[in-house]
């Protein structure tokens, strides 16, 4: 059941990426290219998503619990630490080189571009290495 519900939610998310144009790395790179062929579309995607989620979360989080899974799993780490800033900087570097962040990269799998097929396994390796390092160095945030 959770598989099916998540399949539909992933589909909805993926449709959002396709309709918004964010499944195209060229559009993302042009957003980031302020000094060149700037395309402000990504800001509109963020605005649309944040407006809906801002109000939607307020309605949903008024409930005592989600429909399944017992409780809401909200991050409750406070403060800015080095891990957050260093991680975001490394992520931004890779994002700027490729135009891919994780969602659009996964959505692009079935379109089969060579660059995507190189990017995705490398991304999973990067995630696995980071998780292992966090575990080894005992840097995990409390859940």
């Amino acid at each position, binding site marked *: 059941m959770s*598989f099916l519900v*998540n399949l539909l939610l*992933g*589909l909805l*998310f*993926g449709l*959002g*990426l*396709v*309709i*918004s*144009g964010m499944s195209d*790395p*060229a559009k993302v790179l042009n957003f*980031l290219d302020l000094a060149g*062929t700037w*395309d*402000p*579309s990504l800001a*509109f*995607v*963020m*605005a*649309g*998503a*944040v407006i*809906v989620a801002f109000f*939607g*979360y307020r309605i*949903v989080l008024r409930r005592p619990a*989600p*429909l*399944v899974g017992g*409780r809401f*799993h909200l991050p409750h780490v*406070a403060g800015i630490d080095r*891990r957050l800033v260093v*991680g*975001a*900087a*490394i*992520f*931004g*570097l*890779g*994002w*700027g080189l*490729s*135009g891919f962040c*994780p*969602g659009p990269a996964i959505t692009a799998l*079935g*379109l089969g571009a060579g660059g995507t097929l190189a*990017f995705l396994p*490398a991304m999973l*390796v*990067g*995630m696995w290495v*980071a998780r292992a390092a*966090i575990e080894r160095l005992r840097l995990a945030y409390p859940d």
Partner: protein
Amino acid sequence: MTEFTPWASLLGGALIGLSAVLLMAWEGRIAGISGIAGRLLPPWNDEGLPSRLGFVAGLVAAPLLVMAATGAQVAQTVSSNIPLMTAAGLLVGFGSTWGNGCTSGHGVCGLSRLSVRSLVATAVFMATAIVTVFVVRHLA
């Protein structure tokens, strides 16, 4: 050049936001794709694997479904520089996991929750990505 698409982008963004809200309503989770994808690999320390597999399968199916329904191609320009894309993939995977979120987890879900951590993370990855594109396109 890519065409500026304010309405389509706003609508697509709203669908992304709706997906995030419904995931919170269903099983109380943040729709952070780096977290969902990163936990596809072992170790699996919770019961959430079927959910994550479903979400990822939905993402993959979306453009294929759009093409099947409309008969049109989903426009996409991906760099064919394999070493560059491999390096970028490693950086995106490592960085988003190390920083506990990417464009969706920090950028959409975190900002919607008015999280200061997510605001800082989003500012940092936007800034480094903008500098990276500037260096690659205008200095290199």
